[in-house]
């Protein structure tokens, strides 16, 4: 199979992506033939109710899960054909993840959590640079237990971007935070999106967040229900919920 010729801008391309979970005799269709592309540097917000398939989608394109049908291409790598080691390599070199529950290593300081990633990356920034991007230089030597939720999430962002990823995948990054802290986290996200040019996908329940995106995709019943571009992006500081 030859790679679909991507346009200069396209970093990500998915066609007919399907995912079926089998539990016993029951089949759950989490994704049904999703087609999707993303351009370099694009900031995309994915909305949708619980069970709409958006997290499954994010997990597959992030190399955390495997599709049951269809193709997913990152540049000229066909993700859907990569083996376990290939997927690990892909995550290590190209993808940064941010989760609702930070998932920092509690026994490492902020700097060390970032270092954890820079040690295994090809062209990382220094931990200090990454933490500066999220305004946490002065909290570098604190352990997660000594940081607030928002600070922990910003460490998670610094950890995700330190490798200079091509894709930044965020699953409910503000889900566990209050509005004010959440906005600071979103500011950090838009800033790194602009500065390192990583294509950023943010999954959220929170419709208010869609205004900071280049493009908004809505998932329902395992498929993309609608899609629109914002004529003008609002800065994160201009939204509230």
């Amino acid at each position, binding site marked *: 199979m030859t790679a679909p010729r991507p346009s200069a801008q396209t970093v990500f391309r998915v066609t007919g992506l399907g995912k079926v979970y089998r539990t016993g005799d029951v089949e759950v269709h989490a994704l049904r033939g999703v087609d999707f592309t993303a351009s370099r540097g694009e900031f995309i917000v994915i909305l949708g109710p619980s069970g709409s398939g958006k997290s499954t989608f994010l997990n597959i394109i992030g190399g955390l899960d495997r599709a049951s049908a269809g193709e997913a291409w990152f540049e000229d790598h066909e993700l859907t054909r990569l083996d376990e080691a290939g997927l690990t390599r892909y*995550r290590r070199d190209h993808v940064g*993840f941010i989760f609702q*529950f930070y998932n*920092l290593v509690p*026994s490492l300081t902020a700097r060390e959590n970032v270092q954890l990633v820079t*040690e295994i*990356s090809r062209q990382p920034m220094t931990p200090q640079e990454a933490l500066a991007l999220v305004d946490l230089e002065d909290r570098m030597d604190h352990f997660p237990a000594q940081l607030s939720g928002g600070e922990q999430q910003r460490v998670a962002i610094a950890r995700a971007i330190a490798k200079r990823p091509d894709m930044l995948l965020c699953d409910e990054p503000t889900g566990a935070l209050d509005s004010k802290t959440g906005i600071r986290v979103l500011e950090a996200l838009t800033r790194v999106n602009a500065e390192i040019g990583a294509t950023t996908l943010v999954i959220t329940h929170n419709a208010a967040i869609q205004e900071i995106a280049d493009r908004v995709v809505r998932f329902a019943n395992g498929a993309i229900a609608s899609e629109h571009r914002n004529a003008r992006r609002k800065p994160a500081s201009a939204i509230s919920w």
Partner: protein
Amino acid sequence: MRALHIKLRRDIIRLWPQALAIAMVMAAGVATLILGAGAHDSLATTRARYYETNRFADVFTTATRVPEAVATEIAAIGGVASVDTRIQKIALADIADMAEPASVTLVSLPGYREPTLNRLVMRSGQAPDPEADDEAIASEGFARAHQLTAGSTIRVLINGRLRAVRITGTALSPEYIYALGPGDLMPDDRRFGVLWMPQRALAAAYDLDGAFNSVAVKLTQGMPPAGVIDRIDTLLADYGGLGAYSRKDQISHAFLDAELQQLKSMSRILPPIFLLVAAFLVNMTLSRLVALEREQIGLLKAMGYGPWAVARHYLEFVLLIAAAGIIIGFVAGAWLGTGITTLYAKFFSFPFLVFSRNPAVYAIAGGVTVVAALAGAIRAVAAVAWLPPAAAMAPPAPPRYRKILRGHIDLTGLVRQSSVISMRHLSHFPLRTASGILGMALAVAVLVGSLWSFGSIDHMIDVTFHRSDRQDATITFTAAKSEAAWYAASRLPGVLRSEPFRVAGVKIRHGHVERRLSLNGRLADAELSRVLDGDLRPVSLPETGIVLSQQLAEILGVNRGDDVEIELLEGDRRVITQPVSAIITGYIGLSAIMELDAMNRMLGEGDRVSGVHLAVDSAAWNQLFAAVKATPTASFITLQHVALKRFRETLAENILIMVTVYVVLAGIIAFGVVYNLARISLSEQAREMASLRVLGFTRGEVSGLLIGELLAIVLIAQPLGWLIGYGFAAAMVEGFTTELYRVPLVVNRDVYAKASLLVLAAAAFSAMVVRRRVDRLDMVQVLKTRE
């Protein structure tokens, strides 16, 4: 079934490998206690029953020739219940299927009645005709070793005359449960047997008509033997009495006692250690296992279950595991105990076996296990069950880590962050790390504590057979002879070198401690049967004084230069005082040695020898045997290579089988511990592992983290385990030591290496399991849930 019970069942099913590993550790602890105590109790009970049924005597003695009338005087001594007089002699037997001569003890049977004491248990055939002079009952083991049945004939050198003796039957006797031949270290049914012949025949052969030379006495219930012994000695003094002795000094009884004592101490030292180690490990693993259930406990409470209901649920969980462990332990312990008892019974000639099942032992084993399991669970449940549900459901407050050495050492750039994670885990939970290290160390220690004996026994054999008693054969004469007998022996075919020795029965005394033993006289610079000092260097025997083995010196409480009293049990029965001139290494028996000439001077019977040690040309064995069989003065010949073989076999049948069982159980414990520690660490860190996988760490890197931690614990635990294991071994040595032999405490490097390798193998297997688990780690699942 109630929902909580369904949960219980599912939890057990979900955690079955861990539950099984914990149950096996418990089972090993329980089984050791039951089998150790069971084997000892069964044998002790069997012996007691056998002695009682067959009226085993309490006091024994031999003399030269005692008129039958003296028997009435012995019977009249206060405290004597019954007396049996006999003729008892040692003779050489020439058996068709054996090149070397065998030794037999001839024991007379009273005319037309059964002996009143030491009654035989007929195993086949019948008693000889009391009038026949060539019929005998053979001891069962000896008969079996030579396929002798009723009607078989063997040739016995009776009082210098070779006579054909017809076997009429086989029997067992409580007097020869441990059938040790003269001069032998271990029983050997092939080379030694007992022949019971009619009184008349032996009296005629040994010119003992109307007389006897051996007495067995039964005392009235509760009568201490000391007084009776003195009276008998006085009565027999004029008839060449060799000193009466109680059961304590009766060979079969003494050896059996030593074996029982060893079994007892093995069951009193190792099994409690095993049980406590198992209990500690069960406590540790269960408390960590239950701690992992924190969220579930919160959930149950949120639904309205009270703290007691929750606590009961988890107590039931650990009790189920404990019950499984106890049942497996009971069954395995009873089975192994029966097996080992049967083995011992075969080795000792018992006509029947009484299996003792002491309920107290079962209760102790079960009780300790249950308490350990419950304590472990309570510790963990109590920490959670009384929290408000919301607090219980929330993860425990995140641990506040600190920089190692408070950040004084900057490891940036030197150590990978993944190693920093491991180091911080280990240092942040010092108690958990310490208990993990202790657990692993105990695993190593139980292995060291059971493996050491193999090497120690090898050392004992090396010293005894290769450095000390290096002769190929020993000929013992029927009685002490003039030195001409030595020269005659040195001219026997194949003899390369010969050294005479003298033995004499003595009581050796210091203060009020007294031991009855054979004093041994040897050439000052003997090359064959050497005397070794504490550093195992040959010692030249001094011209004066007595040399004692270390154990004898300890028992008597004497040092070099102290005086000991020596009471001669033959001849003029003088009491002589001698200084202790050296203390030497000797693992077998209590030995007292003098220079030959000095001993002969002390005995005052001129230059006499009791036998010779020989170095023999291995090509000339058959000629030598033929010559010895034809020598009327030789009462028996001991072959060193046969003795060594028997020694090894006997130990293999006794200590080593028991030890092997312990090693296997120790292996199970070691394995269970390592496996559980690895599994629990994995559960505790699953979330972190998944995070790292998401960040792009490979499976190898992630499992490496956990395995690195495990390895650190395993490695730190090794030296500690060796140390504790050495302590266990030292405690065991105390238990092994009897007056018949002393096992040296030699813990060779290979013991440590084997123990460590076994534990490392268990760790490697556990690492593989961890690796497989990490491979199956569901990253998404873990990360989507709150910590």
